[in-house]
């Protein structure tokens, strides 16, 4: 990527079309038509007020703020917290898989790949029967005498949502982070150990810093996918308040055919991901530059 941007600069004031432009054209045109245009159009429509024949204004945002500010805050909080949670758990598992290479960890690592291939809608269905007040989990706990079925654990809320996200996202994050840990040579770990570093220090001072880029990549991908998830919050939280903005967007569209407020909520979710996406892209470009420099 670095090479592309430097070559695009015109040399010595010349205005010549770079020769690779025709080659790039189909891909770029496709991207612009299929992603760029809908994105811009959604941005534009969020300002277009249906009640005033599509005149531009902030009415949709005002309504989104009036009705859904709790949900926006909830989505943001749920996303940050669950990303953090998934990150920590995934790092712990990856460290375990990296440092303890035996049959048990091999089986676990293989099992851990399964949830990646299970679609969110299936996970959601599973969670609704697993986490229900009289669902599998509560009944199992009741059998052990830990829970009273008259007053079971209520998990169709933030807690249940987090459990669902963790179930689905931790394995995905482990896949990326564990891959990064595999690249770290044993000699670093042994060197740290022989200088007297404990396990915690090895993890915090050697493994994690050396694997920062893949951890960041995993976090960014998990974060963006949580912001955009619809089925899990829809089926776990449903019509409760607060809920996530994806549920609100579906409600605005399906019930009111109100694309204005739906797009305003959409823009909120773009804002939530754009900083992490920018950070991710920047770090990728920096890496690519470093690769090229080597």
């Amino acid at each position, binding site marked *: 990527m670095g090479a592309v941007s430097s070559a695009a600069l015109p040399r010595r004031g010349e205005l010549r079309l770079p020769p690779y432009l025709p080659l790039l054209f189909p891909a770029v045109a496709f991207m612009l038509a299929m992603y760029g245009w809908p994105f811009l159009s959604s941005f534009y429509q969020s300002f277009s007020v249906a009640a005033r024949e599509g005149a531009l204004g902030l009415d949709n945002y005002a309504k989104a703020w009036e009705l859904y500010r709790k949900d926006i805050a909830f989505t943001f909080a749920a996303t940050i917290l669950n990303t953090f949670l998934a990150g920590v758990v995934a790092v712990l598992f990856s460290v375990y898989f990296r440092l303890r290479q035996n049959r048990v960890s091999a089986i676990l690592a293989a099992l851990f790949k399964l949830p990646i291939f299970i679609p969110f809608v299936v996970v959601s269905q599973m969670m609704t029967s697993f986490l229900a007040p009289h669902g599998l989990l509560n009944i199992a706990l009741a059998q052990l005498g830990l829970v009273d079925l008259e007053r079971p654990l209520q998990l169709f809320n933030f807690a249940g949502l987090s459990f669902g996200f963790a179930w689905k996202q931790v394995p995905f994050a482990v896949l990326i982070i564990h891959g990064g840990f595999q690249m770290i040579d044993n000699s670093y770990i042994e060197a740290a150990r022989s200088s007297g570093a404990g396990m915690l220090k090895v993890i915090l001072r050697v493994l994690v810093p050396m694997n920062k880029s893949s951890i960041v990549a995993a976090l960014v991908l998990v974060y963006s996918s949580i912001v955009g998830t619809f089925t899990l919050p*829809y089926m776990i939280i*449903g*019509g409760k308040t607060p809920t996530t903005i994806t549920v609100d967007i579906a409600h605005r569209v399906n*019930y009111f055919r109100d694309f204005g407020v739906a797009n305003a909520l959409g823009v909120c979710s773009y804002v939530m991901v754009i900083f992490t996406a920018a950070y991710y892209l920047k770090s990728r470009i920096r890496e690519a530059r470093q690769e090229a420099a080597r």
Partner: protein
Amino acid sequence: MRKPSLGKVFLLCAFLALALALPLSAQKARLVFMTAGDVNMLALGQNVFSPGFTAKNPKISVMTIHTGPGDAGSQQIFEKLNAEKDAKRKVSDVDVALVHEIFMKWAMEKDLLQPYAKKAATSKYVTSPFAKRALGVNVEDYVMPLFHSQTALAYNPEFVKNPPKTYEELKAWVKANPGKFGYNGIKGGASGVSFVTGWVYAATGKYQKYAVTGPFDKAEVASWEPAFKELKEFNKSVVITGGNVGTLDALNRGEIWMGPVWVDMFFTFMNEGKLDPKTKLLLPEPGMPGQAMYFVIPKTAANPELSRKFIEYVTSPEVQARDIVQKFNWYPGIDGSFIKASIPQATFDKIYGDVTPADLVKKGLSFPLADYKLAIAEAYEKWAQ
């Protein structure tokens, strides 16, 4: 011998093709049936209506086209017909459409349909008020209902010995039994929307104005604030479930003892063994809304007689009894008394046992005019959450 010119060969081929095609087309006419609704509507068209109708009319095949669930699916049919009108097409691609109530408001405004019901042989079986008005719009003669789906409160008689008969009694019951009533709010499916609509009817006593006569009056909306504030309090003692299915599942697992459900889903779940067979239904005063799905014929349909023939088949007592009531557990689009002879007494007793035909007439209400319907949903988000 002279070689035949290319033009002549072409003419000959065209003639041959025509000669072959003519008897074929005379043999087989195709009817395009476009339906909104969930995938069960596609199954109904493809696997039930189409083969059934072709068995009776071997020269006609039925092609089912499915748009999508809910009002959004009906909107797609509306957009299709409206686009044909804008393009000044003389003949529509669609012969018969099956649509939701809201479609009638849009289509009647744009004059996209033709009247047919009075000419249909089966119209004598239709007695429902839903065949006359849809969300306050006069639709008489333009529609015939395929089925009627109704919401009602389902309850478990094991725990609820003396179920509340009105919304007022329900409030007291919920206060006495916190956490035992569940519904899905307004974002998780229409059984919750229906419950909330009934709440507004009960609190205002203005069913006639909101759902029958109209007109839409913005000042009414402001008057709902206390009713929705009360609903907010009510919501503190109830469980908000994950959807239409969520309510049924919670009932089945015994997590809640009472909740609003779609009657057809209720019976389907029961037939499939997914719901405790003891569970019963009731319609509280002043009633809860239900809705019909309608057959309509586009104004520019190619062959209105053929379209009508199809509708007559599907609204015949035989098909209504066998497919609509027994297979899909809906209330029939035609008057229940006409199908009584065609279904087993046990089935009739089951579907009309808890909620009697008299209950349906009195308390099977309609959803309000479209503007009120939207206003109720928004008022809920503003005041009850």
